């Protein structure tokens, strides 16, 4: 990536990601992920899917699911639409790279800084989510992803490992409020 003179702040407005442990739960702000929205263009399924899957190296996940292999991850977000994840340090230009792969078969939009991502790790994650969202968190398996209200905000919840590892994507501007809600719920069950 090109060198430039601007310093980045995390969504919680810190130089370094905020990582907090409450009881048996760790809530980690994770800004090290680049995100792009990938939306298939109308009538272009035939050339879209192979191009996208060639880039990712795995099949695009079906509704309600997320998939990951190597550097790339994908989360189904809407009919014909996915969020593509990759490490920020090496993929800050994610939108350009995805667009290059899919060409005019899809629309690609940079979403990296539109979201704050919190990784929630620990055995009390389930009772914590019970206090945050209407998701049936007990039934959620690794590789499942859904959208749900948390703290009045539309968030994506991705199950990385059932019962102990989840990611929450929420609107970046409300990162502090969302973080506060997560901490409160963690304290409730600590």
């Amino acid at each position, binding site marked *: 990536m090109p060198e430039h003179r601007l310093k980045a702040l995390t969504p919680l407005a810190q130089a370094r990601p905020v990582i907090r442990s409450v009881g048996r739960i760790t809530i980690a702000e994770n800004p090290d992920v680049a995100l792009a929205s990938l939306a298939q263009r109308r009538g272009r399924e035939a050339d879209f899917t192979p191009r996208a899957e060639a880039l990712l190296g795995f099949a695009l996940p079906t509704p309600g699911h997320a998939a990951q292999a190597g550097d790339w991850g994908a989360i189904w977000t809407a009919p014909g639409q996915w969020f593509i994840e990759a490490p920020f340090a090496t993929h800050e230009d994610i939108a350009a790279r995805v667009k290059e792969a899919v060409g005019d078969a899809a*629309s690609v939009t940079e979403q990296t800084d539109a979201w704050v991502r919190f990784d929630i790790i620990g055995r009390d994650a389930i009772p914590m989510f019970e206090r945050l969202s209407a998701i049936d968190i007990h039934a959620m398996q690794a590789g499942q992803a859904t959208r749900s209200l948390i703290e009045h905000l539309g968030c994506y919840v991705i199950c990385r490992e059932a019962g102990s590892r989840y990611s929450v994507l929420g609107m970046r501007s409300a990162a502090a409020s969302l973080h506060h809600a997560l901490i409160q719920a963690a304290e409730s069950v600590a």
Partner: protein
Amino acid sequence: MTVNRLSGGQIDRNNTLRFSFDGKNFTGHPGDTLASALLANGVRLMGRSFKYHRPRGVISAGSEEPNALVELRSGARREPNTRATVTELFDGLEANSQNRWPSLSFDAMGINDLFSPFFAAGFYYKTFMWPAKLWEKFYEPVIRRAAGLGRLSMEADPDAYDKGFLHCDLLITGAGPAGLAAALTAGRAGARVILADEDFRLGGRLNAETLAVGDGSGADWAAATVAELATMPNVRLMTRTTVIGAFDHGIHGALERVSDHLPVTPQGKVRQTLWRIYAKRSLVCAGAIERPIAFVNNDRPGIMLAGALRAYANRWAATPGHRVAVFTNNDDGLRTVADLRARGVAIAAVIDSRADGAAISGVEHLRGAMVVDTKGRQGLSSITVRTASGEMRTIACDALGVSGGWNPNVSLTCHHRSRPVWDEAIAAFVPGADLPAGMTVAGAAAGRLTTAAALRTGAEGAASALADLGRTAALPDLPRAEDDAPRMVPLWYVPHTKGRAWVDPQNDVTVKDVKLAHQEGYKSVEHLKRYTTLGMATDQGKTSNVTGLAVMAAMTGRTIPETGTTIYRPPYNPVPIAAFAGRSAGADFRPKRLTPSHKWASEQGAVFVEVGMWLRAQWFPRKGETTWRQSVDREVLATRGSVGICDVTTLGKIDVQGTDAAEFLNRIYANPFGKLGVGKVRYGIMLREDGMVMDDGTAARLADDHFVVTTTTANAVGVYRHMEFCRQCLWPDMDVQLISTTEAWAQFSVAGPNARKLLQKIVDQDIGNEALPYMGCAGITVMGGLRARIFRISFSGELAYEIAVPTRYGDGLIRAMSEAAQEFGGVVYGTEALGVMRIEKGHAAGNELNGTTTALNLGMAGMVNKKKDSIGSTLSEREGLVQPDVLNLVGFRPVSKDAVMSAGSHFINAGAVANAANDQGYMTSVAFSPSLGHAVGLGLLKNGANRMGERLRAVCPVKDLETEVEVVSAHFIDPEGERLRA
């Protein structure tokens, strides 16, 4: 040793808890409720009644309690109307009686009781009619002070409350024999089960009765069953949890009292959690509530339900007295005698209203007799009994157990308006048809009043609910249990007596009040309730509704089912408003959205303003500035004189891509976008379907198939939703993809004659007039290579740009730009200066785009392109919207330079009376223009475009303000637009 503590019971005598009631200290044990501990300490008098201030004691042993309401705790945590019967005793518990003055034993307001003939139902409605104006200021406050329940603390609630969400196959409400058998059945079958009970000990009546279950006691079976259930990972046992309502689609509300049994809510923990339970099936095992019999002076402390007497004796080893009488109309009530005698309590007499009830040996058993009166000022001392032969007997006793039968607890079954039906066999209402979808009922709640029937129907109910879900469940081997058919002869009130017989002790409603309601024509149960207040307040008539109905039936000569039914609404029991609010209280009422420059702005001491969920910097005070105007004037003048920077990230940004993107914008904007060149920006207005302006903003064309649309901050979500609706529902055949990028980019406006000079220090490429002309846009890099976007657009009338970088770099960019601006004496300005400058320039904003204005009103009729079709274009031509005298947006200035103008003022022609008929329009926006040195305003004026130079009155009756104003162009600054093209 406490005077009324018996042997045995399910209390932990190894530990002693201290507590106080009305300042007096007592002791109890873990496992006690406040009510059981008070009884054990010989306290029968626990409260004063609502209206007559009658001395009252505990009636029940559960959440149905109407009488024993106390103020619990002190200070900010003081909670009124807490039922002593469900308050778990903890060390240091502090309770006070309520609705008495100066003390519980001597209550001056007890004088109300002497005047009771005046205070019959409807008294207030009839008496305090005149003069009407005295009601609010005098009568009501006085009555409220004399009547009523506990006092609020008037302080903020110091505790936190959670809301949560649970999912299950089967929700079982109530953990008595039916609920436990159901949970065992469903739990062993592997189903996801939630078993919720409001008690802290599961088992329901099994803990209160001595009836054998299997080879042991009911309580032992309950404990063993709970122990097995606790080992099942698929079963969630929720104690202290009241299911408060059945809502749509299997959703139930449940209130868990997480910390109410602790002296103080632990740090970081919540007091209560309001659960929303998504249940595929629901089995109501809520049991039954015993009902009293109404007789004269049946409300004295010491008189309680017979089942409650047994519960206190068996579970809590407590008794209200040592010489107890029993008054019953059924066999169940008779069991009280054996239970109390087994614990050494003397039985004064058994009064059985039935002549043919089973005879009990060893006690005075008066069959065919009724209690007709009682004595004892602050607690029962004797009862008067009319025997079968008509003889009057006075029997000394200090407690009386009353049983009029049992009412199945049908509350939850009624929440979707299902009406219960009358079951003659038990003389009670049982759940009707049309229960909430997925709900079934078992045990006593279904009118199956024996232990064996409860166990059996509970197990069968669970199996059948699971079968409904396609699962098989084997019925467990159920223990042997009592299965005697209940025998009772209905008796609602004791007839042929004089005096007041209470039906609803919580609201002080007597049999006479029901008679009076009937006499005055309030015969429908709904009218009865409103006229007498029967069944209202915290207990919602759990012990009184059916009796009230029965009395009304007797008055009308109809049967009870003919008279009507009573149904229940959620919540089943009172729920603190704080629990409904959950975490959304105080500063956390709603989430806050912070701009990318928020941290920097906070460091500068910015004053913030809420704009929707956003916090935006309103102005940046500097040292020596004492009023907001000084700061804002400085920011405006510095911007117009040199350069100003403003965070405009909050404006909505919507990425529009696809081969049909241009045509899509053509349809949603009134003005055309098809031919907008790549690298160009155009201002646009969107109309609603009805022709009114919905929003304004810009669209920048980044590529043939790629636009970025901006919206106002307020309408960002609404416009995006509207565009999604158009894409998905109106024109699904178009190839268009939309996504919000509002949060992805930190965007700043840089405006003023030195804007380019400043930006040239930031931007890596040339942004001169040729490279980036007015209304151009480009992808650029800044600060040595960071990808960014620049748009040459202006809402201030100055040479201006908007520059955007990925949000994480927004803080870095504002720091870099504000530093670079110092060289030019530039500033960072807030929303207030932004507002001043847009008014000076005559730009419509939220005040003008108020949902009632058309493009014609706003002077933008020419933008509604007639060569193409777009949303709202046709309806904007409606006759009424295009009259010659429609409102036009024009500018106003005060005739006298120093005069003040006020937004919201209405325009009245000189010499005309200021009334609605003479209304010429209204002022929408006003600001003090530091550039011009006087106030400037925008307003909508009838035929305003043709009234330049006219003088009018701007009248604001609300502020009692009138200003003479002159109609001028809305463009106060640089009307030719030379600055922005500079």
